[in-house]
């Protein structure tokens, strides 16, 4: 108690020690990294798009026949409410959009894609689905899948990793062998099997990926705990009579968990890729759900164009793949910069 109050008063006495978060060493290093800033800007853009998916697609909601407008309790003449922050519909479509809003509206049912027009500004993909609408709402789907899988993986990984790292002995050996087996499993193929067994849906893709997501985090946390456990302050706590749960939750975990959560959140890009890959193989959300991987899959039948005009349907393949690459690039640029900042050696 004494020591900590002393250091606080020392900080107050010396204004140089007290720095805002923006001027901290880590932030200064991050700000010097142009690629990291580009990544950050890309991601902020995607967060903006996914939050304001409704207002950004209000034209589509007006012009296409769709259930989203009905489920919001609006009519064609009141659809513009989704762009008006004073109306309830604006907040509803941002924070609790009805499920039907994720269905891409269709311009007819034709298998042949249609080029960009007044109605469909980026064209329609196979099945008449509006590409622009799919890209915008697909950002929500991407974040949704990425955050749930990572969150679940982290939760399970933290529990199992701390049990393994703290208790050691045969429990540790058993858990580590299970993790080794998981790493030796061909993840993509088994995820495909799991989704096929449970049935094709976005929820089941998320379940399949979550089954394998925790192993890496558990192993990382175990390593961290083994390192932290040897530090003197843990011995001190032990000498004061702290029991194992208290040791884990009060002393060891808070010291190891920070870097794990940061590193894991940077994995969201990779997870979104896996979701997209499964959708691409035809195992994702039901047809018509706004999902980038599925849109690339739809494009497969048309990407080779017409005889003599190989790029006749360029828009069906270009837009969805471009947006996926941009999204993952954003995460990776940011992730690289953050890992650089966290790396104590440099």
């Amino acid at each position: 108690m004494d020591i900590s109050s002393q250091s606080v008063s020392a900080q107050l006495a010396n204004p140089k020690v007290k720095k805002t978060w923006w001027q901290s060493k880590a932030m200064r290093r991050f700000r010097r990294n142009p690629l990291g800033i580009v990544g950050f800007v890309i991601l902020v853009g995607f967060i903006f798009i996914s939050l304001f998916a409704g207002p950004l697609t209000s034209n589509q909601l007006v012009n296409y026949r769709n259930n989203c407008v009905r489920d919001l309790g609006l009519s064609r003449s009141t659809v513009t409410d989704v762009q008006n922050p004073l109306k309830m519909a604006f907040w509803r479509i941002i924070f609790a959009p009805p499920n039907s809003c994720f269905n891409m509206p269709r311009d007819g049912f034709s298998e042949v894609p249609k080029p960009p027009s007044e109605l469909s500004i980026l064209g329609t993909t196979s099945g008449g689905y509006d590409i622009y609408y799919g890209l915008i709402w697909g950002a929500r789907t991407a974040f949704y899948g990425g955050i749930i899988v990572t969150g679940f993986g982290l939760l399970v990984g933290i529990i199992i990793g701390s049990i393994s790292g703290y208790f050691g002995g045969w429990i540790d050996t058993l858990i580590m062998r299970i993790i080794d087996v998981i790493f030796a499993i061909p993840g993509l193929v088994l995820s495909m099997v799991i989704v096929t067994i449970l049935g094709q849906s976005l929820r089941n893709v998320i379940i399949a990926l979550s089954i394998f997501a925790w192993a890496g985090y558990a192993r990382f946390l175990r390593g961290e705990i083994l390192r932290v456990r040897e530090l003197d302050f843990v011995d001190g706590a032990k000498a004061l009579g702290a029991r194992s749960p208290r040791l884990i939750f009060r002393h060891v975990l808070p010291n190891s968990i920070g870097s794990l959560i940061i590193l894991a959140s940077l994995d969201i890009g990779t997870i979104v890729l896996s979701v997209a890959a499964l959708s691409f193989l035809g195992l994702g959300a039901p047809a018509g759900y706004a999902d980038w991987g599925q849109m690339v899959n739809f494009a497969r039948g048309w990407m080779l164009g017409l005889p003599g005009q190989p790029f006749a349907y360029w828009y069906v393949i270009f837009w969805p793949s471009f947006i996926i690459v941009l999204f993952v690039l954003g995460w990776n640029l940011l992730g690289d910069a953050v890992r650089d900042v966290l790396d104590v050696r440099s």
Partner: protein
Amino acid sequence: MFVFIVRRLLFLPVVFFGVTLFIILLMQFLSPTQRAATYVRSEAQLRNIDAIIEQYGLNKGPHVQYWNWLKQVGQGNWGFSKATGEPVWASFKRRFPATLELAILSFIPTMLLGVWLGSASALNRDGFIDQVSRITSIFFWSLPVFVLAIWLLVIFYGGLGWFGLGQVTTAHSLEIIKPEFQRYTGFMTIDSLLNIRFDIFLDVINHMVLPIVTLVAIQSAQIVRIMRSSLLDTLTQDFVRTARAKGLAESIVNRKHALRNAIIPIITLGGFTIVGLLNGVVITETVFAYPGMGKWLADAAVQLDTASVMAGAVFTGILVVLANMLADVLYAVIDPRIRYN
């Protein structure tokens, strides 16, 4: 070292039982009739599906099913693959060499390109080469396999028509199944040369270009990044300074002292690269319709072809363990500071 290898090899049975048990337990989500569907080959069997359920004990507990599968495998029978319409072992014998060929021809350029570009990048830190290689490698690292594969397909197959899909053109595919065409090794590149059919050889290479480019571009991006940071690390170490202080030429210091030490982490990464290739071929082969293990397992997974998935998972698991073991052994051989005991 010997003890270390033995311990790693003892882990193989653990992987075998772990992976197969996991799949058997997964299959318990299906009804016995659905499980029986993978054994159905003819209409007569379809009408008599209860007999199949009875014969394979599919309505009994998972332990009975697992025991039956183990007994079958013990007799050398891996079952029948619904996805390819032939015994699993026959599919394996044809498809494994096709994928191995693809993997080897991708692995070598991946490593060479990665190490070369990574070290060029580190030696010219913040120079032009460094900037270009950092940006390209982070770009390729972010490219999903299926996106790159499809772009290459659209441009070089659809647009320019330079390369083909599958393993050989239709005309050649009829020739390679003739008895005159001896399959000595199973590798199409080698077999076509041994049969003195240069036209087939060129055709096979032509069909492998796009899958190889896809795999190399994505895998080597990772190697470039690790090689660069490893070499930058090594260049700041004392022994490099000592070498310079002794008056050695800069190129000798870089090549003989720094590079040799910086390359060590790449060897461990080699093990991961093999795992990455194995996952990568699932999508690459599917997009390019290349008849290898990846396409087979992708087809098998969506058809719930249990026999193929079991065999494929066992095989991949064993390969992953062996690849990582080899990487660790090489690591110790190259770096005398490492001791496994």
